[in-house]
């Protein structure tokens, strides 16, 4: 790309987009600096380039821009960020400016923030299960290192509590390798941001954390770069320094709204609900940065959090996310109302990488069978509960009643746990057997008889 060029020829400003005339050689995705009349500086990126014109997206928004004095400086390079081990323990803005009062980071390396796709043949298949200490996840939707497992939530649900608890408790059995947390906040409130920072500093996680904050009142377009900065930092920590990095990104819905805003300003043809047709590809460029690479010790595990507008799982944001991520954890308003924490609605939850991460030598040999049986029993319990609501419980058989007992105890004793309670894999599975032992042995048709022999605690029936 050519070197620095400056133009004072903004010809059009619309939403977060501006057009600069007179430039023949703007590079696609090139970074620009916008110098406002009052001396403020904002960063932007070229979205479209043609002879004599460049279309630029401005991350700080276009307020106070004019078509007269405002100058646009084309830097001749794609967007990069300085990275260093010193980033650990620091807090940055949504565009990577330090906001914790500390000085600038002394870079060890400059990295392109858009990242490169990991060659699929160089990926290591993720198999190290992470013990989050939460039964509903560990027992039924095990998370593994290198996975991307989003939390689908809704407004007013305790997703932040859950994410903080996972961050605090997550560990890999028999491993004391170095770990780090990268937290990217996009459009979350000051209070939520404060909650995470406080939680991190109380538990000592702060020293291992890199935090990027774009809050609800920060420029919306900045949200497009925030997760990319966070993931670039994560890639450096994971693949250059060999750390195990957990990336928490909240809220993906706010990110997608920023994408929609840019798309609308460019008058693009929308797909569903006004979101751009390339949103799947764009989200994939974030989520696919999770993983492990053969021959490198580190890993990137992602825990994106998104709020489903009106709790609608078919909304484009959760929908496209679910098609890219390796499963999902779904929170339920109904369980939350019943006072169950964490209110994880297990039926729509899934961890696609669970099968490789559990079993003999990883968690426990009976894990897969137990999980499958719990699912079948819980689904049947829920169906019966629905039936009882309509026709009463007179017509139920004795076995049906056992399922109702199971349902109630399962939600309270297995799914429900305290906010500071961490259960080991063994504790989770033992608890599962306690509940499965409500049933006679014949009902446990998804469990190998040898495990029933070993773990079943009910009567002989």
């Amino acid at each position, binding site marked *: *790309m050519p070197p620095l060029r400056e133009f004072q020829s903004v010809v059009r400003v619309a939403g977060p987009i501006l057009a600069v005339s007179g430039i*023949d050689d*703007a590079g*696609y*995705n*090139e970074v620009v600096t916008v110098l406002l009349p009052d001396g403020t500086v904002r960063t932007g990126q070229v*979205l*479209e*380039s*043609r*002879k004599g014109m460049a279309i630029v997206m401005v991350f700080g928004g276009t307020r106070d821009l004019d078509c007269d004095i405002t100058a646009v400086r084309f830097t001749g390079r*794609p967007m990069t960020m300085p990275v260093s081990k010193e980033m650990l323990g620091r807090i940055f803005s949504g565009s990577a400016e330090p906001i914790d009062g500390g000085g600038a980071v002394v870079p060890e390396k400059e990295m392109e923030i*858009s*990242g*490169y*796709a*990991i*060659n*699929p*043949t*160089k*990926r*290591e*298949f*993720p198999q190290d299960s992470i013990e989050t200490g939460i039964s509903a996840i560990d027992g039924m939707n095990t998370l593994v290192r*290198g996975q991307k497992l989003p939390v689908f939530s809704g407004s007013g649900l305790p997703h932040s509590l859950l994410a903080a608890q996972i961050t605090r408790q997550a560990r890999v059995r028999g491993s004391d390798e170095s770990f780090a947390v990268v937290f990217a906040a996009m459009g979350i409130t000051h209070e939520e941001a404060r909650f995470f920072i406080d939680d991190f500093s109380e538990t000592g996680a702060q020293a291992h954390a890199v935090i990027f904050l774009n809050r609800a009142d920060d420029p919306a377009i900045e949200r497009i770069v925030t997760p990319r900065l966070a993931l670039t930092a994560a890639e450096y920590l994971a*693949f250059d320094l060999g750390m195990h990095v957990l990336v928490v990104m909240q809220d993906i819905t706010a990110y997608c709204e920023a994408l929609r805003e840019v798309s609308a300003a460019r008058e693009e*043809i*929308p*797909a*569903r609900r006004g979101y*751009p*047709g*390339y949103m799947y590809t764009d989200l*994939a460029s974030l*989520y696919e*940065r999770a*993983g492990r690479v*053969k021959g490198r010790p580190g890993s990137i595990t992602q825990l994106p959090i998104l709020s489903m507008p009106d709790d609608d799982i*078919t*909304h*484009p944001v959760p*929908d496209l996310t*679910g*098609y*890219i991520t390796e499963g999902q954890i779904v929170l339920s308003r109904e369980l939350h109302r019943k006072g169950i924490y964490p209110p994880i609605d297990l*039926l*729509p939850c*899934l961890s696609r990488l669970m*099968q490789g991460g559990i079993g003999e030598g990883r968690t426990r040999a009976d894990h*897969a069978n137990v999980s499958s049986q719990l*699912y079948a029993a819980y*689904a049947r319990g829920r169906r019966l509960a629905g039936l009882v609501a309509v*026709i009463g419980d*007179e*017509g*139920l*058989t004795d076995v049906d009643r056992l399922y109702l007992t199971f349902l109630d105890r399962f939600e309270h004793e297995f799914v429900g746990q305290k906010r500071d309670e961490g259960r080991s894999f063994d504790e989770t599975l033992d608890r599962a057997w306690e509940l499965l032992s409500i049933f006679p042995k014949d009902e446990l*048709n998804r469990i*190998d008889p040898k495990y029933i022999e070993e773990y079943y605690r009910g009567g002989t029936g």
Partner: protein
Amino acid sequence: MTESSIIRITGPVVEADRMRGAQMYEVVFVGEDELIGEIIGLHNDTATIQVYEDTTGITPGEPVRRSMMPLSVELGPGLLEMIYDGIQRPLTELGEISGDFIVRGISAPALSREKRFHFTPSLSQGQTISGGAVIGSVPETNKIVHTILLPPDLSGTVERIADEGEYTVDETILWLLDTTGTVKEITMLQRWPVRVPRPIQSKLPAIRPLITGQRVIDSFFPIVQGGTAAVPGPFGAGKTVVQHQLAKWSDADIIVYVGCGERGNEMADVLRQFPALVDPKTKEPLMKRTVLIGNTSNMPVAAREASVYTGITIAEYYRDMGYSVALMADSTSRWAEAMREISGRLEEMPGEHGYPAYLGSRLADFYERAGRVKTLSGEEGSISVIGAVSPPGGDFSEPVTQNTLRIVRVFWALDADLAHQRHFPAVNWLLSYSLYSDLVAPWWEKHGGSEWGKMRSDLLALLQKENELQEIVQLVGPDLLPEEDKFTLNVATLLRESFLVQSAFDPVDTFCPPEKQYRMMTLIHRYYRLGHHAVGEGMTAAGIQQLPVTARLSRMGPMPHEEFESFYPKTLEALDTAFPGGED
């Protein structure tokens, strides 16, 4: 020609001027980095180009170089066991060049130029041959003989043919005197444009099922060799596991697996498992019959658009040798979305949901390349295509699902509710269909037994009946049902849980041979008939449920096949003892 240059860049779409003479779908090299692109629009001397790599940093004024060739794939020995990206760049070799991440502007030949193959000629001097004729053969793996065919568009007289020996793919093996009097040098390496179907003599009707070892598919909703099927389902319903199962266990000779816009970790899983798994038919590692195309969701979108064409062209090449090929495309929705994205950048008038108006015809063109055919050399070959569809929100009324259903003949509808109960494969038996069931009945009657058609329709009717009864139960509860209906519900549960549920992760259950499927079906069917009669004679449904033989029928799937051999006659006997009254 060298003066062509870029005038506009917007994402993966680039415009270049002074391109007079360029052709639609010609490959061009874009910018200083020579990124690979393809012309998808022409307006006077301005060409619109979709670029198969990330265009970051490209500026107007950079050169565009023409290749004078349409987007083509390299065909020849050495395709098997390879993993390519959407435009047939070998990913393992790219990794050797650029390391763990795919950077821009790198390339490597699709087929190794160093590796030597043992070529045996089957022509002699002076023979007159036409397109598709067999030149010779190469043992590509222990079980796959790679036939070298004359490119379909050539014909002439053999001037000279290479002796038996070791050759690389770019050494001349045939000197052909064509009708114009020039001698053409033919190598084992040939190119074919991906968007053009390879010619055949004629299409043939399908006759034989493609056995997949998946009970719900083979026994209830079968596909044939040369058939087409769609697997739509919301996320988490198990599309990818179904596709992987078919790639692993279906009894095709060659598998082409196209991971189109899907997850990187899934490709890593395939690469981990396939070399270790053994093909039940040939006892060779599965990888030895597989070609993988992996264009994950974060790889360039235009290459995703090309990936299904790359895959089907390779499939056609092996079909032309007389093999039965199965192609899995996961997911065709990502392919359609890639089309939508490119179409949007071209500012074309959109059709439904923003998809281009030509979505339906592109899908039809693709699926029409499937089929059982008589090849140019007179062999019989087939391509079966199984496309996954990812409908937004799991809503089957969306354009990609609907346009696909107009073409394919098998529909395996995956269901979120079944997946939530961990009923896998989550194929909904009420929505799914197969238009091939009558076609494959003779095969099943020969290889399973004469009752196949009847048992299948009885059991499907049973599931339909269960659905009606469930609606009544929702209103009045199960207690008020007559004993006969209670028994029907119990048998339906048994059928679902011990026959339709099949664990892909269980070492035995993952593949169920057709003979075992038939016998399992026989046992359940017989139980149903005998029990039905017994209820008529006054036995209660609960009483039948308590019989030891009922429990016997509940764990057949994971039972080792040898054990099942003796289990089957014993259980038939046990059924007769338990129900002395016989059938209706």
